[in-house]
């Protein structure tokens, strides 16, 4: 083909590689930085570096949970049971410590159990048995806390595990360990999502499951692995929670799944699938945490925080919609 009517490619200067989320994230980052800057100026409590560090360490568990959830949402779905899994893993650790197992095997087996539930129960029922993801994980949402109460006989039980204590409460070169752990989890998952064939398949399945299947993607495996990643992340969050409480609690983790999901959605990951990023999830959570700290330190009664977060979610998603339509 030589001379044709086809126009030269419209070259867009400065077009970023993933145009939409990239630009959105930059804006988001600026908003968060401005909020933080303003807070540092007007709220003296925030200026203590220890305060910020404690906050970040506290939310590391939820962040890890949200990072795992991002995989499930990108491939279209939602794991309602991550909060329940967080608590349930605490129960497993309590059991295994009681049997006298060493810390290493306890951690490994607990995470293995979480991954097995994600892959073999959630993933299998959703991908192979074609059951609705909401129903399957809703069942876990009620089953896991119930099992936890059975294990703990209904009351909070102290668990002492030096490794988990170090993981949740220790520091390395002046940084609290949960923050480091969250950074490591982020790095690993980022590579998996952005640099592996599996990662691209997660996006492909979320974008158009049937097209991905016909193109040769083993879509069931992608879904099952995504639920496994999500469950393992919830398990890691459970280990952190157990370590920081020093006890396995029958109501541990409940409600965190929605907090994590709010962060995922604020970060630009769409329920319709095929779009989203881990960096967005980090920013989403950062925004929520900074906002609620500002409000609390600024004197807003704590009961209002949930309402504000809900309105912020609606506003963010609404703005996103309007931008896409316009």
């Amino acid at each position, binding site marked *: 083909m030589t001379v*044709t*009517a086809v126009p030269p490619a419209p070259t867009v200067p400065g077009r970023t590689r993933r145009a939409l989320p990239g630009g959105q994230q930059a804006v988001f980052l600026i908003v968060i930085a401005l909020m933080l800057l303003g807070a540092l100026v007007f709220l003296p409590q925030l200026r203590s570096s220890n305060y910020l560090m404690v906050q970040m360490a506290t939310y590391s568990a939820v962040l890890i949970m949200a990072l795992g959830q991002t995989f499930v949402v990108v491939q279209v779905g939602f794991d309602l049971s991550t909060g329940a899994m967080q608590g349930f893993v605490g129960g497993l650790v309590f059991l295994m410590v009681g049997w006298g197992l060493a810390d290493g095997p306890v951690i490994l087996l607990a995470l293995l159990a979480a991954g097995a539930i994600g892959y073999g129960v959630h993933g299998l029922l959703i991908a192979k048995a074609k059951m609705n993801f909401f129903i399957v994980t809703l069942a876990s949402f009620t089953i896991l806390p119930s099992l936890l109460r059975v294990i703990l006989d209904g009351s909070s039980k102290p668990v002492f595990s030096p490794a988990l204590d170090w993981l949740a409460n220790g520091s390395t070169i002046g940084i609290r360990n949960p923050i480091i752990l969250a950074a490591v989890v982020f790095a690993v998952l980022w590579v998996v999502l952005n640099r*592996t064939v599996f990662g691209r398949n997660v996006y492909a399945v979320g974008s158009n499951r049937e097209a991905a299947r016909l193109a040769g993607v083993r879509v069931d495996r992608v879904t099952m692995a995504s639920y496994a990643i999500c469950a393992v992340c919830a398990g890691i969050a459970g280990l952190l929670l157990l370590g920081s409480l020093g006890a396995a609690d029958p109501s541990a983790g409940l409600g965190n799944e929605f907090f994590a999901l709010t962060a995922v959605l604020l970060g630009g990951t769409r329920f319709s699938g095929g779009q989203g990023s881990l960096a967005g999830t980090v920013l989403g959570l950062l925004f929520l945490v900074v906002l609620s700290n500002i409000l609390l330190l600024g004197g807003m009664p704590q009961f209002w925080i949930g309402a504000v977060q809900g309105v912020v979610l609606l506003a963010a998603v609404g703005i996103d919609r309007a931008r896409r339509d316009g």
Partner: protein
Amino acid sequence: MSPSPVADSPGSSALVVRGLVKRYDATVALGGVDVEIRRGAVTAVVGANGSGKTTLLKVISGLVPATAGSVHGPDGRAVHHLADAQRSRIALVPQEPTVAGHLTVWQNVALGRPRAARGPFLDDRRARRLAAEASAGLLPPHLLEQPAAALNKSSRQLVQLAAAVAREPAVMLLDEPTAVLDEDGVRALHALVRRFVADGGTVVLVSHRLRDVLDLADSVVVLRNGLVGHAGPVEPGTERQIVALLSAEERPGRRPHRPDPTHVALEARGLLGWRGLQVDSLVVHRGEIVGIAGQSGSGRSRLAAVLAGAHPASGQIRVDGHEVATGSIAAAQAAGVAYIPEDRQATAILANQSVAANLLVGRAEPRLRRGPFRRRRVERADAEELIGRFEVRPPEPDRPAGLLSGGNQQKLVVGRALSRSRVVVVADEPTQGVDASARGAIHAALFDAAADGAGIVAVCSEFEELFEISDRIVVLCDGRVVLDRPRDLLTPGEVLAASLGSPVPAGVELAGAAPPDVPLSDDRTPKGQP
């Protein structure tokens, strides 16, 4: 064309478009279009993929807002939004059938019509009557009670047409209406358009099939790169003019391919598939293009899906002599089967993923990866090479595929499939909804694959294309093979007759001495003869 006053006088223009500009981000889809559409006539809009045909219809029907310029409807009032278009009785029938699958056909047709309701309450009897009136001549009455999802794509498109008729429009905008219609559907569409125009209606027809333009249209508008390249009445000689305009992009020179009767690429025996697919034997040689014909619902797409492993079936499939497990895409791909599925919106395109991701997804060539990791430099080079080879426009690997025109999306699907190392290519309507230039590129790619020794199975509902590309033609009827013969020993009439279940005399000898078209005989004999 003189700039006429926009008035509601009979004989004037039904639509007046002035200085219309539409930009998507930085891409200019329409660069200042001035068009007047004559009232009570059929106007065809033709142009290459990405020339702005669909965008023009979307702006006229208020689906997307114009960046600049104006549209005035048949009542002389400006159209900005969907509500304005509805008030001006402008109805758009989009290219891809979008019907509510759970609802019955009559519910789909009557959906949202005030006539089908009494105040706030539904009135099913009136809705059914309305649907029956609107679908007269388009759909057989017994289909009205079926859920729309049970219909094939051609019939779903007719449902959509009936729904447009039910709106009692003054102007009907049809976007590639024949792209998914079978031959019966095309006839019904032509009759509908003629009737509608005879009653004073106005039709704007976007199509890349010149046959539609010549048969139906009174005037024609040629779009090129978002601008009007030509506008005028259809006269003798118009066809040549348009072909010259459009085929500036047609490519000459295809690599010759020759079927190799000593090497079987694909062999299927005793296939039993869902909904009555029963193929006793199908053989495709290396270097051979086998065209699969049949009415819609005859099982041609089902056969393609089974051969590609996309649907379970019992029976035996051998690729290059090795048996392949049926019902497994992975097994078929591993054996060297590449699949181009039908219905790209639903089953082939990842709309919110990049062009590059669409070209790469599902491919397992070792050179593209290192363990579980992607080799991104190799991927990038591969995607750019495919974009260049298939002339994807715009040639941006990072653009979301959903922003490309239909023809360019199809190039992605074909490019993805043909980039695999393959022994067999199964292509289900490979040129559905694409223009002459893209069609040429896709055909050239199929010929290329055949020249490289692949066996090609191509489902074609268009006879023109079937006879253009096939070395051998296999006709299906009711899920069975009723005719399997070299193309040169067949006429379109025979293929049509066989696809309708009529017997075809065996043993015609010479291509040159082909018998006259077999008329549709009334005495249809029982099916299933060889």
